[in-house]
């Protein structure tokens, strides 16, 4: 049961059974845990402000945006809010809570466990993962080495993205992905922020927890730590009991490693784009291991035009294409295509 429904029922003084009370306690404690974890990584002057926010706000909080010299911005339910004397307002010009360089530096120190230098590999991806799977995006001055981004210094902006899983988001589409007990090679296509990674995570969880009377051995090649949101190698979001994660390993290397030694039924990976990614996916598809991957794009035609993904897809390595959009919120499926780009189903919102 969704937390909002539970809270609404609580307000209506509905009589609950014991199980519902446990659900309420579980959902609320999850939000409290998130609040406590995230607040502990904020600077001393920011922490009381965020701790004073109601649980209702925390429930829908998506991002905390800190920019030096600018008002503190909170993204709640997809909308930007600012603070005026502890109250949420929508007009930034009326805000009286501005982020200072000290607030930002202290937060960076806490987020990096006082060891900014130890996160150079993570900073090449532009973010750090903290316990709970919450991601802290960093912007500042880039330090280049041989033309590659080595790290970021003089941090000027932070974006703390609150990790949330949406259990059951993949339930309506799984029947289209599995045939005769075998998972079809699937590509999830959608623009940023439409729920591709959330969907991949839920597919991994569902297959791993057992689907159609079978436990699938799932491998996740999580190059950018976005699917499992690993902290010190341990996934912070649920990915199922039969799932292995290779965290921070380039897709091409990770997929080859999984193919050689792990014997998975399904390998899941996020955002294939380069030539090496396409080749690795192609190799895996031809070796009897199902691949579920994602790619940026607003439509199938969009992706087919892109290089090197377009030419790769014309070889028809995938059996299913899921097209997502933001039209009806996170996880809204526009259409499902088969391997020959024919529409199988047009759906609306999942979950």
């Amino acid at each position: 049961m969704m937390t909002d429904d539970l809270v609404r029922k609580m307000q209506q003084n509905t009589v609950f059974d014991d199980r519902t009370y446990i659900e309420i306690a579980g959902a609320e404690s999850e939000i409290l845990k998130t609040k406590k974890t995230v607040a502990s990584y904020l600077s001393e002057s920011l922490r009381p402000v965020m701790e004073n926010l109601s649980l209702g706000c925390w429930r829908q909080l998506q991002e905390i945006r800190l920019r030096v010299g600018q008002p503190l911005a909170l993204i709640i339910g997809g909308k930007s809010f600012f603070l005026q004397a502890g109250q949420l307002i929508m007009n930034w010009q009326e805000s009286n809570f501005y982020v200072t360089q000290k607030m930002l530096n202290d937060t960076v120190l806490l987020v990096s466990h006082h060891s900014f230098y130890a996160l150079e590999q993570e900073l090449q991806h532009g973010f750090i993962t903290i316990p709970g799977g919450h991601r802290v995006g960093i912007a500042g001055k880039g330090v280049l080495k041989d033309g590659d981004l080595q790290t970021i210094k003089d941090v000027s902006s932070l974006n703390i993205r609150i990790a949330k899983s949406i259990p059951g988001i993949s339930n309506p589409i799984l029947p289209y992905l599995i045939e005769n007990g075998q998972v079809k090679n699937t590509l999830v296509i959608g623009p940023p922020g439409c729920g591709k990674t959330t969907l991949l995570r839920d597919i991994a969880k569902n297959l791993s927890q057992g689907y159609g009377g079978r436990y699938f051995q799932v491998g996740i090649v999580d190059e950018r730590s976005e699917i499992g949101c690993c902290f010190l190698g341990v996934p912070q979001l649920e990915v199922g009991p039969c799932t292995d994660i290779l965290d921070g390993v380039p897709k091409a290397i990770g997929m080859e490693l999984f193919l050689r030694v792990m014997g998975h039924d399904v390998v899941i990976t996020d955002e294939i784009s380069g030539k090496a990614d396409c080749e690795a996916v192609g190799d895996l598809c031809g070796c009897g291991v199902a691949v579920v991957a994602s790619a940026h794009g607003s439509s199938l035609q969009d992706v087919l035009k892109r290089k090197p993904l377009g030419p790769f897809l014309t070889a028809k390595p995938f059996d299913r294409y899921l097209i997502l959009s933001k039209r009806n919120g996170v996880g809204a499926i526009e259409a499902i295509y088969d391997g020959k780009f024919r529409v199988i189903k047009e759906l609306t919102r999942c979950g």
Partner: protein
Amino acid sequence: MWVKWLGGLFIIGACVVLGRRQANILRKREMQLQGFLQLCHRIETEISYGQTPLPQIFQGCQTLPFPIAAIAKETASGLAAQTGNTLWVIWNDTLADFAPFLCLNKADMEVVQAIGNELGLSYSREQMKKLQLLTVRLQEQERLAHEERVKMERVWQVLGWCSGSMLVLLFM
């Protein structure tokens, strides 16, 4: 008569102890600065080769002499507790807690306090440069401490004897 002699011996003894204590402070100051230098070298090595996070580096400095090892351990606990305090605050608080055991002068303390201010917030290349600068400053303080000890250690010891004997002669 024997009470006079006993009193005289007591005065000499007390002056000798005081003189030795001063000499000991000079020796300890040099040793403690060497200890902080070792700590900086350890941090530099860990950052350079392993990019080890600071809480783990401080935790692993238990082989350093007292009170440096204890300060490192206390700092590691403070960092691990994730109370919202920055390294600068934790380091300074820990130094204040261990102040009775430290024999450093104001200039030494300024350099030692800078360790907490310079660490953590920059990327590894910049971090190494800051640590090298800190090491140079600590080496300079250690050189001064060594010179002072060589010059003054014997003086304080002899001064203890002499002042004690002088007082006894005056009173007798």
